[in-house]
């Protein structure tokens, strides 16, 4: 890889990003900009703090939502319940990635022969992007076990995962499809001209390039999925959100909601940072190679 090219254009990008966030210029102006940004942030935080602390309901809200006592007390059991969110997330993701890829590949098959498969993939993606997630979870987790068919799982977690896989595969398949469409047709022509079959061309030439390009938007959908695991709590699974409700019902204190929110954020914010970092790296790479061409 062109290390020098990468590095020089990389720092430029980083710097322009930083200055965009700080609203400042570079050099001496930059240092002044940082000082102003720090000062204005402090003023802002203090102002908001003063307004909130002086509001008439603050003592009650403080006791109800920001009790250190209840935070310490509820965190362990909510964290334990949060493991179920992580489990649902991981299992669903492992199923979504290949399933969505299959849908996307079906949708990109050319020619009239494959019309039925293409149509099926389109109907699937349209339908499951159109219905609310919570509705699908409800219908599957309460409806299917209600049928009482022998051998069919009755676990709400199982059906919650199925619902999330169905919904998110529809979204993720669209992400994959955008990636597949972004690979220039000349790549396929080159591969086929060498005698590679359609399947080999897809596997070795089209998909590796397509997937590389869509990793950032894929991660974006991961973040959404991690949050939506809380919806499985609505049908009775004892995950973090449901545990929070149980705890707050027992203690008449809402601090446990804060604990649950912090747990989710502890996972999703690193994911969001990783996504941004990957996007920036991708842009750097493109600029590095663009400079060469």
């Amino acid at each position, binding site marked *: 890889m062109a290390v020098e090219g990468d590095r020089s254009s990389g720092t430029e990008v980083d710097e322009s990003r930083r200055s965009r966030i700080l609203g400042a210029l570079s050099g001496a102006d930059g240092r002044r900009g940082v000082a102003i940004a720090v000062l204005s942030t402090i003023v802002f935080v203090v102002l908001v703090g003063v307004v909130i602390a002086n509001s008439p309901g603050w003592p009650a809200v403080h006791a109800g939502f920001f009790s250190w006592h209840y935070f310490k007390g509820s965190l362990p059991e909510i964290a334990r319940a949060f493991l179920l969110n992580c489990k649902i997330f991981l299992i669903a993701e492992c199923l979504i990635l290949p399933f969505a890829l299959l849908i996307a590949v079906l949708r990109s098959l050319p020619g009239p022969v494959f019309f039925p498969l293409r149509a099926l993939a389109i109907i699937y993606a349209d339908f499951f992007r159109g219905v609310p997630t919570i509705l699908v979870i409800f219908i599957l987790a309460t409806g299917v076990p209600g049928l009482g068919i022998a051998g069919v799982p009755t676990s709400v977690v199982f059906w919650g995962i199925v619902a999330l896989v169905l919904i998110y595969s529809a979204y993720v398949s669209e992400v994959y499809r955008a990636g597949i469409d972004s690979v220039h047709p000349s790549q396929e022509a080159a591969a086929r*001209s060498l005698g590679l079959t359609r399947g080999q061309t897809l596997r070795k030439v089209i998909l590796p390039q397509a997937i590389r390009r869509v990793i950032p938007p894929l991660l974006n959908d991961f973040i959404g999925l991690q949050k939506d695991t809380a919806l499985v709590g609505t049908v009775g699974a004892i995950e973090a959100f449901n545990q929070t409700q149980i705890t707050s019902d027992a203690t008449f204190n809402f601090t446990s909601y804060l604990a649950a929110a912090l747990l989710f954020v502890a996972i999703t914010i690193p994911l969001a940072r990783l996504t941004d970092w990957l996007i920036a790296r991708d842009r750097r790479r493109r600029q590095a190679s663009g400079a060469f061409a």
Partner: protein
Amino acid sequence: MSAAPALEIEGLRKSFGKNVVLDGIDLSIGEHEVTCLIGSSGSGKSTLLRCINLLEPVDAGRIAVGGDEITRRGVNVDRVRRRIGIVFQAFNLFPHMSVLENVTLAPRLALKQDRRSAEEHAHTLLDRFGLSDKVGAYPDHLSGGQQQRVAIVRALAMRPRLMLLDEVTSALDPELVGEVLDVIGELAAGGMTMVIATHEMGFARDIATRVCFLDGGVILEQGPPAQMFGSPREPRTQQFLQRIIAAHRL
């Protein structure tokens, strides 16, 4: 060995919608011949090459390679393409693979060669065309001339009996054209049968055993380069060559 021509084309027609691009091409090329296709942009040179490699379905006519008709119904297009190499104007290397992977991909997948023999062959070819220090490089980090030479090696790795070159120097900076033309010259000297669509008239004059002038979807005139460039019969050919000379391209 076989008396059949390396490439034989009869009555080839191809349209894109209402736009007739090839309107009855007849051409017969012997083994070891180097045929240059010349003609203005849009005269159908590229389309003809893409039809020979079955990248474009033909509307009518037949194409035979080594006496074997490849335009008949039910032909295995992948098997046909393994015997015919094509190199494109825009290189079309696989950007996510190193030079070595680009060159060995098709021999390993399509010819089922094991990694070692595929890589050995690749190294030999890359060596021969001065690319041995670029084996591990990625296409983005090569110059246009290097990329095009890799693309030629990638096609050669399939041991084709016929090479099609589609304006392979048109996307290159002028100073990089020479290195690619040298490679093609070496292939010609080695006896490779080639059909070359080109705007490099000087190159065509030097390397071709036959020059075909495409105009209006047909081969209007063909002959040895000395005759084609020295005393073309057809007024259209004369006009075309005069324009080329006026543009200092010959």
